[in-house]
Structure formats: structure tokens, C-alpha cells
């Protein structure tokens, strides 16, 4: 079992503090959902874990099986087993999706132990079929000209090919119609198991109808203010966030900036 442990994390962007002491512990074989209204710091948490250059961790720790994640470069974090499905994936012209995926897979392997081309193609074909992606998506340039839904699916494709220990999925459901949402959920559920843990960030309870979380957390004002099981998400769906704000005496749940 592997553990991703976040302790008292404070993060600032351009001098403004967004996360104000986040505590969270995720094990493999667990799926966590972070919910919360806009502007409460959810995406900032995702970016800070991966090492986005614009976010500055001012205090606190992130550890992956005891290893200090904050000491690692972005690529080292990935190699250590972290993966972030991004809300806005970059487009890279001239680099095909397939070439990129192979580089990413081989980056995690030692020299001389690269994935064979045949094995790679077999896996890619099977995974793309599962995600109902058109074959030609493999030879198109990375995310270039992809629709919003295609980009999301492509993030899940990468996750399934790279097989991280922990995946953070930043609003993987936003902008997806119900059919696409089902397909993306199918991919994530397939990963579920012993060697895999996930942190899903979402505004909408809808996603959790397809991927049942083991733990649900609510973020407000840059902190996790409430944690529970799948039933918490259902309560949020039925009653909204106001009862939590009331319970905790919060008037404005945001940190002033959606990040």
C-alpha cells in the first residue's frame, strides 16, 4: 500500500495565499472526492501537488510514502507515481499523441528496458477502444484541435497508459455530456484497485454517480472543512453547501480567486 500525505499545506500564487492549511491523506485502493463551490482552492491543491510553476508552497508538507514530494521537480513527481489529469491540457503541435505517450511511458523505465513497440501499440489500441476514441487520435498532434471532450478523454488515456500510483483528476467531468462522462468513468473505474488511488476534484455530484468515492471532502476558504463517506456527497447534492457554512460559521467560502 502506498500513501500520499498532505499536511498543513499553505500555497500562494503571486503573493496571495490560496491554500491555508490543507490536511489530507490518501491510500492506494481508495478514491477520494474533493467537492466545494468555485474559488475555494480545489484546483490550486491539484496544481500544488503536481508542482505547477506558478504556485508557491509557503509551508506544510506533501509526502509520498515518506518521500518529500516538494523537493522533487515536476518530472520526478511523475516518475515517483503522481499523475494530474489537467483541467486545461496544453496543445503541443508537431508531437503526435502516440509518440508523446511512448516517451512518457519510457521516461519511467530504465534505459534498455523501454516498452516494445508492439506491446505499446497493443495496449494503446485496447485502451483507446475502451475509451471509444477514434483510431486517428493516436496520430494527431497532442491535444491540438481536440474538442473539450476529446481532451478529457485523452487525459484519461494517458492515465491508463502511464499507470500512476496516484491520479489527481481536476474537474475531469466538466463540459462532458452524459455519454462521455460514462466513458471517462469506465476508464477510471478500470484503474481502481490495489495499486491505485485517486483524488477527484469536482463541482458536481453527478460524477460520483458513476465513480463511487470512498471518501468525500469539502473545501472552503482554502481548507478541507468537512470529510465523510459517499453519503456526504449525496447530502450536498440534496441540500447544497449552506448547511456546512452555517455549521462552521462561514460567510464567504471563497479565497477570493478561483485558481
Amino acid at each position: 500500500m502506498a500513501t500520499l500525505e498532505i499536511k498543513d499545506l499553505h500555497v500562494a500564487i503571486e503573493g496571495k495565499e490560496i491554500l491555508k492549511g490543507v490536511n489530507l491523506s490518501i491510500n492506494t485502493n481508495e478514491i477520494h472526492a474533493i467537492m466545494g463551490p468555485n474559488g475555494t482552492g480545489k484546483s490550486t491543491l491539484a496544481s500544488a501537488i503536481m508542482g505547477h510553476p506558478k504556485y508557491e508552497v509557503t509551508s506544510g508538507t506533501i509526502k509520498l510514502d515518506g518521500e518529500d514530494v516538494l523537493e522533487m521537480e515536476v518530472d520526478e513527481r511523475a516518475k515517483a507515481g503522481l499523475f494530474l489529469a489537467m483541467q486545461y491540457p496544453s496543445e503541443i503541435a508537431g508531437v503526435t499523441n502516440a509518440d508523446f505517450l511512448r516517451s512518457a511511458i519510457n521516461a519511467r523505465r530504465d534505459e534498455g528496458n523501454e516498452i516494445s513497440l508492439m506491446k505499446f501499440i497493443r495496449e494503446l489500441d485496447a485502451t483507446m477502444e475502451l475509451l471509444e476514441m477514434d483510431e486517428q487520435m493516436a496520430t494527431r498532434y497532442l491535444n491540438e484541435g481536440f474538442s473539450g471532450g476529446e481532451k478529457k478523454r485523452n487525459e484519461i488515456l494517458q492515465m491508463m497508459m502511464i499507470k500512476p500510483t496516484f491520479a489527481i483528476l481536476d474537474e475531469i467531468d466538466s463540459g462532458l455530456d452524459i455519454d462521455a462522462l460514462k466513458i471517462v468513468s469506465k476508464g477510471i473505474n478500470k484503474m481502481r484497485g490495489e495499486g491505485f488511488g485517486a483524488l477527484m476534484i469536482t463541482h458536481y455530484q453527478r460524477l460520483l454517480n458513476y465513480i463511487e468515492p470512498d471518501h468525500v471532502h469539502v473545501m472552503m476558504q482554502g481548507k478541507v472543512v468537512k470529510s465523510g463517506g459517499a453519503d456526504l456527497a449525496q447530502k450536498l447534492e440534496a441540500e447544497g453547501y449552506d448547511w456546512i457554512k452555517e455549521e462552521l460559521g462561514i460567510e464567504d467560502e471563497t479565497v477570493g480567486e478561483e485558481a
Partner: protein
Amino acid sequence: MTVETKINMTEQDVRAFSKAMNEADWMADFRADALNKVEHVAMPTPDKTKIDKWNFTQFPKHTVESATFSSLEELVGEAKELVDVEKQQNLYIQHNNTPAYISLSDELKEQGVILTDIFTATREHADLVQKYYMTEAVKVNEHRLTTLHAALMNGGVFLYVPRNVEITEPIQVLYLHDDAEASLFNHTLIVAEESSSVTYVENYLSTVEEAKGLANIVSEVVAKDNAKVVFGAVDVLAEGFTTYVTRRGVTGRDARIEWALGLMNDSDTIAENITHLVGDNSSSDFKMVTIGRGSQKQNFTTDIVHIGLDTDAFILKHGVMKDATTSIFNGIGRILKGATRANAVQESRVLMLSEKARGDANPILLIDEDDVTAGHAASVGRVDPMQLYYLMSRGISQEEAERLVIHGFLEPVVSKLPIEGVKKQLTEVIERKVR
């Protein structure tokens, strides 16, 4: 410091050279006539690059004598990798100034295709060469460098594709430069007759570290009605050359010229490309990539002139600038009066890898007709940190991520080159230059 501009060759010298190369008499006169004009024709003035201190006239030797090749097996190193030693037909190799190897398949010969060195062409195909050599695409008197070229031309090739002949395999020309003293006044002349099609690739390859000579290179493409010419080139000329290279095209009705140029010289270079879309409904697609390094100064001017109705042109230029290099990218879409429904689109992107490098992208639209469409996009910037972050978040190192972004940026031309060996070479040159 003043730059010596007097040519150290006389009319007698150029006539003697013509004779030594066994050229037709008209060519000797043509050369002598041009030489006598050189002093009276002004230098070109490439926009935004000052060249008055550049040496375009002084060179150690007009001609060097080099070995010919009886088999492709005699090629070494990079030159050998450029050609397909086992299968390659339809190939001309020039070794410095010496026509060194020629091969054209019997099948193409029977169809009337001509591939021969330029000296022989003046004699054996005088009608054709005299008709098109520096008459349509490039004029002798345009400026001093074209005049000088006309007088001193010391190599090149003539490719002729008869009416309705469609050549499926690419024709390749390798200009191999391995003598530091050599100067290259090469002339490529391609004539594609009505409804013919051909893919041509020329390689300029220096295998010496430093050159002492001049490169004054002219390539002319004449695409007659409904003809299609794909012109690929990879230039890798050594530091030390002063390079002027012009590649020009003229289209007939419904004709199309596509350019795919990898301009990878290490020399100071003025690279100029002009396509005249004369025939109605003719079109051109121009793609070039370049990498500047060291303290290299370069000017890339691309000019597509819309003369016929419904002419269509697209210009794409991508440049990577390293070290303290300076490069100017001028893209000109020129729509003349009467070129109704012309469409001129261009895109220039410059990627800066160093604080000291300079890159200017200047999109220019000169339009003298109402019913037209035109567009341009230009950008100069650094590697996008968000792209690097994205790639690195998948475990790819920063170095490898930068490499991927740069290769991707130059891919539009690499992928267009029709010969595997040439594609591979350009990829390797890119690799070497960005490292």
C-alpha cells in the same frame, strides 16, 4: 573598413571557363554580357538586414577540381546517409564544382525526362535552357548578385519533365561541399511542362568546418499549366560562407508549386524565395524552418505575387533562435491589380531560446485589388512554460520536453520532405543544432 567589390575575373576568364566546361557558345556570351554589367547594377537591399559590409564578391578560387564518383559506395559519412545507396536512381551529385555522379532511370529517359548537369544542358538542350535560364523566374539584371551569378555560375542541374509525365519517385540532387576554398555559384533549373508532376529535393551539405568561399545560389522552377512541382531542400552550409540563395517559381494556369525548405546553414545567409502566381487558379504552399545559432545573421524573405485570378498562397515560417543570432523573417503577400479572388495567408513563428538572440517576424500584405482575402499571424516568444509543465507532469525531463517542443515546432517541414534519408538528416541536423 570598405569592402572590396571589384570582381577578380575578366571577360576572358569567364569565356575560358565556359569553354573548359564545354558549354554552348550562347552561354559564353551570356556570361560575358553579365560580367560587363556587374559594376553597373546595384546590390539588393533585403528589408531590415544591412548587408553593405558583407562580402559577396571576393573569393579564393572560382573553381576547384574534385573527384567524381563511379558508385554511391564511394560517398562517405553524412553524404552517404542522404542517398539510398542500394535503390536510389534519378540522382545528381555535384562534388564542390564538379559534376560527379548522375543517374536517371531508363523509364524516365524513355518518357523524355531530362536530368543533366547545367553545363551539358546548355549544349544538349540549348533551346529549352536558353528559353528559361534567368528569363522568367530570375532576371540577370535584378541586382548585382543575380548579375554576378549569371557571369560566374559554376555548377547546377537541369531537370525537364515533359507534358503529361508524372514522376512518382522523387528526383534528388546533392551539392556536396568538402573543399574550404570552393565557392558555389550553383544554378538549378526545373521546367515542368503542362499537366506534369515532379517532386524534387536538393541538399546542400558542407562537410568542412569552415568555408572560405561564397555561395550565390539560384534555383528556378517553371510550372506550366496544370503542372505540380514539390520542391524540397535542406541547406547545411558551413560557417564562413557568405550565402545568397534565391529560389523562385513561376506558375501557369492551374499549376501548383509547393516548397518545403529546411534552411540550416551556419553561415550568414540571405535566403529569398519569390513565387509568381501568373496563371489563373494557380497556387503555392511555402513552408520553411530554420535554426539560428552562434552570431549568425540571416534574412528570410518570402514573397508570393498574385497575378492571376483565383490564386491561392500560404506561407508558413518557423524559426528557432539560439545564442546571439539575428534573424529577420519577412513574409510578403502581394496581390496585384486584377488578381480577383486571390487569397494570401501567412504565418511566422519565432521561438527564442536565448536572451541575446534576435528574431523579427514581419508580415507584409501589399494589396492592390478589392475582391481578395488575406490573413497573417506572427509571433515571437519563448518556449511556453505551460507546455513544459504539461510534458514534465508525465515524467518527461525538462531537457526532453524542450526537445519535443522544438521538434514539434519544426515538424511542418520535416514531415513534408519526401525522401526518408533527407527527412532523417534534417531531424539529425535539428538535433545537433539545438543541443
